[in-house]
């Protein structure tokens, strides 16, 4: 099969397919052998790869032209959620379209980097200070709206995606350092705006034992799962942590803990390697890209993907606080798989259309 003509990138595709294959086994184990859930996961993967295939056919020039419209549409939907969103999972995140419910914040994960890349590509790099200010608003406003839903995880990813564009776009170091200083000063203020449970999660990071029945309990149990896996693991379906119900969310946010317990360090490193290959390939695509827009977008999407799995693995291994970020492709459930696969569609489009053009 000529992958090039289908606008698919071999390295990315094989890496994603291996992730998908591994995930089937882990979801089955993590969901306590729930065939229904496993099949559901399979169907989501099929949907995700279909979206990838479709998006990969869209030429980057068209994506660039669409960027502002996608962004505006995303903002409108986000406001709609705030206004008329139905209450799902205790938070206003979902828009009910009758047949399906979806999260507009998912669109923003793509729309924000697209918009910023489009915006920065409209002039010389590095961007002027006033342009940076405007660009900052373009990412901070939607990120803040998502944070207010409240969905800290997604807000973080949207903000991250935007920040990556600005950084890759050549935002000056002195600006970066000034901003970091400002953040350090503003941090106590932001602390006051966090929900109690979000604050608790950060606090327990420093001392998991302080709340062994609540948030800290999750961290400890996840670390026990990973650590007890050892080098070779306990074997598939043998995660005692998950099956004796010590591990929460064992098929969703904490699926990496189940995987590490069952497949050990060897398995963990294999998975880490696949994720690393994907990110490296994405960054290479950004390096090879021929114009500012595709460069910035490819770089930002790859780095967002990195942020995604790093935050998840960091939280499972106890080096980051618990934020509700699933492990991309592996975790069961959620609508994020479609967004992630669409992002890879964009990356593949950028890579393959360039080659054809040459």
């Amino acid at each position, binding site marked *: 099969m000529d992958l090039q003509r289908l606008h698919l990138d071999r390295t990315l595709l094989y890496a994603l397919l291996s992730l998908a294959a591994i995930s089937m086994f882990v979801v089955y184990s993590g969901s*306590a052998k729930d065939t229904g859930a496993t099949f559901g996961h399979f169907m989501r993967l099929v949907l995700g790869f279909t979206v990838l295939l479709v998006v990969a056919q869209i030429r980057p020039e068209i994506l660039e032209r669409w960027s502002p419209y996608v962004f505006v549409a995303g903002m409108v939907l986000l406001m709609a959620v705030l206004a008329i969103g139905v209450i799902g999972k205790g938070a206003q995140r979902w828009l009910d379209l009758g047949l399906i419910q979806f999260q507009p914040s998912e669109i923003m994960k793509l729309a924000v980097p697209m918009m910023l890349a489009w915006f920065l590509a409209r002039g010389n790099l590095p961007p002027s200070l006033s342009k940076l200010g405007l660009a900052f608003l373009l990412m901070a406003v939607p990120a803040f709206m998502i944070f207010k839903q409240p969905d800290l995880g997604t807000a973080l990813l949207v903000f991250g995606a935007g920040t990556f564009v600005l950084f890759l776009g*050549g935002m000056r170091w002195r600006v970066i350092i000034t901003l970091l200083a400002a953040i350090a000063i503003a941090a106590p203020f932001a602390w006051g705006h966090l929900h109690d449970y979000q604050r608790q999660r950060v606090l327990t990071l420093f001392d998991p034992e302080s709340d062994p029945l609540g948030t800290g309990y999750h961290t400890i149990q996840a670390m026990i799962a*990973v650590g007890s896996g*050892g080098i070779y693991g306990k074997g598939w379906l043998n995660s005692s942590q998950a099956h*004796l119900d010590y591990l929460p969310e064992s098929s969703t946010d904490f699926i990496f803990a189940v995987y590490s317990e069952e497949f050990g360090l060897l398995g963990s490193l294999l998975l*880490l390697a696949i994720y690393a290959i994907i990110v490296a390939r994405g*960054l290479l695509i950004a390096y090879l890209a021929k114009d500012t827009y595709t460069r910035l977008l490819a*770089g930002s999407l790859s780095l967002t993907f*990195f942020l995604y799995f790093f935050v998840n*693995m960091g939280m499972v291994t106890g080096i980051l606080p618990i934020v509700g970020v699933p492990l991309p492709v592996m975790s069961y459930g959620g609508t994020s798989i479609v967004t992630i696969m669409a992002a890879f569609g964009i990356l593949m489009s950028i890579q393959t259309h360039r080659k054809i053009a040459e």
Partner: protein
Amino acid sequence: MLNIPIKDQFRESRLFNARLTVVGAVVLALILALFLRLVYLQVIAHRHFETLSQANRVKPIPIQPPRGLVLDRNGVVLAQNYPVYTLEIIPEQVDDMNSLLEELKQVVSLNEADLKAFRKQLRERPRFENILLRSNLTEEEAARLAVRRTYFSGVELEARLQRHYPLAGLGVHFLGYVGRINEQELERIDKATYRGMQHIGKLGVEISYEKTLLGQVGFEKVETNAHGRSLRILERIAPVAGRNLTLSIDAKLQALAEQTLGQRRGAVIAMEPATGAILAFVSTPTYDPNPFVNGIDQDSYNALLNDPDKPLINRALNGLYAPGSTIKAFLGLAALEQGEFGAGRAIPCPGWFTLPGSSHQFRDWKKTGHGIMNLHDAVVQSCDVYFYRLAVAMEVDAMKKFLEPFGFGGKTGVDLLGESEGLLPSVAWKKSRGQPWYPGETVITGIGQGSVLVTPLQLATATAVLANHGVRMKPRLVRASVDAKTREARETVPETAGQIVLKKKEHLDIQIRNLMDVVHTNKGTAYGIGYNAPYKIAGKTGTAQVKGIAQGQSYSEKMTPERFRDHALFVSFAPVEDPKVAVAVIVENGGHGSSAAAPIARKVMDHVILGKAAATPGGAAPVSENDE
């Protein structure tokens, strides 16, 4: 001179690549950090975690807090908890569910309904959670099960607190009930708060005060064996009981009102005008909430759902009725405010009214007409023609504006979730539905027919506004929440919801006197309950048409099937000098407000004011000539 900036591709790509290098280095460093962390956890500290995992027999087991009790104003228990033995299954630990169920049937009695409810839960709940199979085990069943428990894996015998409503259907429409947490609720609630909890408020006070009643889940750190069965308790964090709720409801009054309505469909609200405290909140027919607690079986539920009397509908909160002539109690005040319609203005009532340029006759309920009417007589005798003319003079939008401050057409702000707003029509409202407003609609709005819809709760609230010097209070069911242990009470502070603004304060007094004469003069439509009342009542009858009557036809109660008979309404407050209670009564298809609804209100007022259900007046009550 270079004044057009030309994109310097080379410089830009060099800048980008420099940044990419920085980013790549950071990514590499962070991946390395993850790598090292994994090596630390899985190789260096492996022993430590291996031991922890082996010893991970200490499990935090949630302990459910007792849910707060619900009491009436005199301490009568409306909702309580009583301990029951339950048989619960942890599906994850069961190898062959069907044969297990067969074996269990030998030990305890299991009927079809139990199994059905169990299988439903089995599909909806996580496999590692306890799922209820049977509740209310007898002592004998519990003992038999306890002896044989070790043979069964995944079977738990638990002592649980079960919600119970000792007065069964009494006040079910305000009290509501708890039920098992379902799938949608599972997504909505905070899982940590509800750990180990099986029930959640579904309706009424039970859901509206869920947070107060719930309490805080406690934990036991329990040592378990390899199969997860508890061996001993290591540590205990006690649950915090939910707060008890004292309602302003008087259970005796509630029972009296429910019994008086009897088999009829209807609603009664009794409220303290000065505070908004609700004394009785009746919707009939009622139903027993107890079967809902552990999941009512489909057949019983269908029976309730398909009952033609619709017991599940909360008529007091969500029933939408045309107010009929009870609206004259409020529009009469508008007439005084209207100036040209003031108290002195006399209008001839020939028994019908026509709009200029139209031959359509809007009839008065009294065919022969009332003669010359002023406001006092029009209210007392409930003359329709007078109010037709008032409506035409006011226009519909002004009527809406006048009635809104009474709480019509919007939420009253009662402390129950899901109240209906009713409807005050306006030209704009009709337009938004793509239709023009017809002048004839204005006419009938004046006597509370047409599009105008009110709930019984709104009627009572509005009547209380008349009694409370024009100030509208938010209706309140809960008087205080009380800590179950310390007895520390948090009283509900009465809240103002708004106020009607009058040109002259005396107008309110004039209208109240008119309403008094409805009850206490022999021309008044409610004289039947007023002639022997030992205190002064202000009230207004109403009869709301259910079925349209064609031009030229007349309505006959006897000839009309029951479902199409008029609704009977009555609003009142008493004693007039110092109002203690405002009442709204609706009897569906009851016929006349004067004969069907007013006597119920009288009984309610007697109970509140005289402190007992007054003996029914001996002999036949005198019938007013104006029996609307």
